[in-house]
């Protein structure tokens, strides 16, 4: 049950959004895993039947921390036809895409993202199957939707093969990884992925979550789901730090990064801190030619959901001014419970030019649509 506890009168409600928008984080899912079997070799079908999809965490299936809602989803997002929220395209269109006037929807498969599987051959096989499935069953059936290439990101060469196999298809708009990798994602084992993405002129999208095996805080394993959820902003700060300090942006001129579902208000403070530290410790990283914040300003975009909510809403203006109005991409995170509703999520009276950028212009620019 959701109870209104805050005065939302400040938030302008844009009834029937006047213009079409882009939603840069939508989560689809097979109704059950067998739906992808037509795209998966028999050997892996048998493997899954016997061993399942063993993750780097304690439970065979389901989350390490019990979620706040069934399947972490809006209670009204369960399709009448059955199956998980996000598993029925017709219902998603009727429930989300049509009423919110979504012209461009970017699908990010995280349920599961097989890149996090410790068995690297299984990871590659399921990535490949899901990539085939999402084109055949989703983007080809609803032209508003674009997909992200799932890659077995703990196995650089296999990930490169998958990027090369998929990149030519116009329905794919980015390469997708999760933040919590085995090693910080700026490290060399991941460089071939970024090189392949840059060669294909595709941005790399890094979505919150993942299971790299180390605890979700530098101080050990927390107790609660709320800590795990809040912690995705911390993971993203460490991941972005690694990308910058290892010099990915310096080495690859065409590399572009989109951080997805990690929040964004932390970015200015991280940029200040990295610049301040780099100014003193630059002898350690001679491969960096510019202050960290400049690489970020030029080459990093962030999706808006879950949008931070200051007590004084105009404080969010300061943050967006610091980040740049051209760097944020609206996202709803449909069908998850912490969904941001397009008409109400941005509690700011912004001018039409800023609004257009944030709700669609920036997305078209970064995804080159």
């Amino acid at each position, binding site marked *: 049950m959701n109870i209104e*506890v*805050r005065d939302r009168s400040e938030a302008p409600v844009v009834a029937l959004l006047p213009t079409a928008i882009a939603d840069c984080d939508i989560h689809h899912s097979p109704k059950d895993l067998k739906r992808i079997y037509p795209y998966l070799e028999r050997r892996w079908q048998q493997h899954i039947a016997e061993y399942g999809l063993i993750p780097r965490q304690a439970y065979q299936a389901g989350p390490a921390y019990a979620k*706040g809602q069934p399947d972490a989803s809006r209670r009204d997002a369960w399709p009448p036809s059955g199956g998980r929220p996000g598993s029925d395209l017709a219902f998603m269109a009727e429930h989300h895409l049509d009423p919110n006037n979504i012209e461009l929807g970017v699908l990010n498969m995280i349920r599961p993202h097989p890149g996090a599987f410790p068995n690297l051959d299984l990871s590659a096989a399921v990535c490949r199957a899901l990539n085939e499935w999402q084109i055949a069953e989703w983007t080809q059936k609803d032209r508003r939707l674009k997909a992200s290439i799932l890659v077995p990101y703990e196995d650089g060469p296999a990930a490169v093969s998958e990027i090369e196999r998929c990149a030519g298809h116009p329905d794919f708009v980015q390469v997708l990884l999760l*933040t*919590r*990798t085995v*090693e*910080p*994602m*700026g490290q060399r084992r991941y460089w071939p992925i970024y090189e392949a993405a840059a060669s294909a002129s595709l941005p790399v999208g890094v979505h919150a979550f993942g299971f*790299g095996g*180390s*605890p*979700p*805080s*530098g*101080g*050990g*394993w*927390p*107790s*609660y*789901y*709320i*800590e795990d*959820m*809040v*912690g995705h*902003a*911390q*993971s993203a*700060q*460490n991941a972005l*730090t*690694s990308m910058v*300090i290892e010099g990915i942006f310096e080495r690859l001129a065409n590399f572009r990064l989109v951080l997805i579902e990690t929040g964004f*208000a*932390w970015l*200015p*403070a*991280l940029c*200040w*801190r990295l*610049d*301040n*530290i*780099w100014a*003193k*410790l630059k002898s*350690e*990283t001679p491969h960096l030619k510019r202050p960290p914040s400049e690489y970020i300003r030029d080459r990093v975009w962030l999706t808006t959901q*879950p949008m*931070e*909510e200051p007590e*004084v809403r105009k*404080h969010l203006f*300061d*943050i967006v001014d610091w980040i740049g109005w051209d760097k944020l991409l609206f996202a709803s995170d449909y069908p998850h*419970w*912490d969904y941001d509703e397009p008409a109400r999520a941005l509690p700011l009276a912004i001018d039409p030019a800023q609004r257009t950028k944030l709700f669609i212009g920036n997305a078209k620019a970064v995804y080159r649509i």
Partner: protein
Amino acid sequence: MNVASLGGIDCDIHPALPALRSLLPYLDDHWRDAVIQRGVHELNSIAYPDNAPITARTDFRSSGGRPGSDLDLLRAHTLDHFGSKAAICNCLYGVQLLFSEDMASAFARALNTWIAREWLDREPRLRASIIVPLQSPERAVDEIEHWARDQRFVQVLLPAMADLPYGRRTYWPIYAAAERHRLPIGIHAGSSYRHPVTAGVGWPSYYTEDYAAQAVGFQSQLTSLVCEGVFSKFPNLRVVLMESGCSWLPAHLWRLTKYWRSLRMEIPWVDRSPTEIVRSNVRLTLQPIDTPGEEELLKTIDHIGTDGLLLFSTDYPHWQFDGDEILPAELGADLIRKITVDNPLETYSRIKETLSS
């Protein structure tokens, strides 16, 4: 900014142990023998590589000895120079990083004794944090009880990251003892490196990343302290976050408070918003000021929603600023006085009482 006339309270300075052998007079026979017979190595943490630029300002490095190891230099460089009425010694020698709780307890006792004898006894402006063997909460409480009668010990010191998140109930006896003795828990940048210093993304390559990650580690610890209910159980407990700035705080509170509103059924004992809890129970030392200019710093304080959380610190001998550029003058005399004098005295009641007596 010249703060010397204000008589400030410097809430973070780092006297350095010259070498492990300096502890020998304060160790019992067993551990003194062990250090010698086993050739126990120095316990200098990777959180501050000896010669890394941030570890000591060039003009604070002397030809002999570790920066911060000489009392006369410390007086000249920081106490006298910045006119501090009192300064809190946070000795970062790595006894909290040991795996053996026996060894850690013996070394923590020796280190605290060394601080009392060689620093506090010799310089009345100095105060200190109690180094506790976090490896055993029971023995950490013993260490607090041992020193609590000495009013010159004003805080309990923990590294920013250790075995378990700090809200975990295992640590609560430490908080009960600290609250009982009106000792804030001071959490300082650094880790016992039980885990990678990142939030679940692995062990980074560069020291630059490690130092940057300390602010991120503080965010996770704050989440844990709030969500586990430490401040619900110990409403008078103060936590001071040291040496990772404050600019990360507003965005973190906006996110934490947003998720608290939607997930508080999971943690029903958290009966006030995290933002409110932090404003009443958490403080942060000033250095390093990561904001690039005074405008961003003033906006950050505005975003925090109160100017009562920042505590003056020089972070001596670490390199956080050059010359006297410790605070932008544009902050204004009132705010500077608050940060330099009022907020520290409000946080450390033991300093307030001993200064006025």
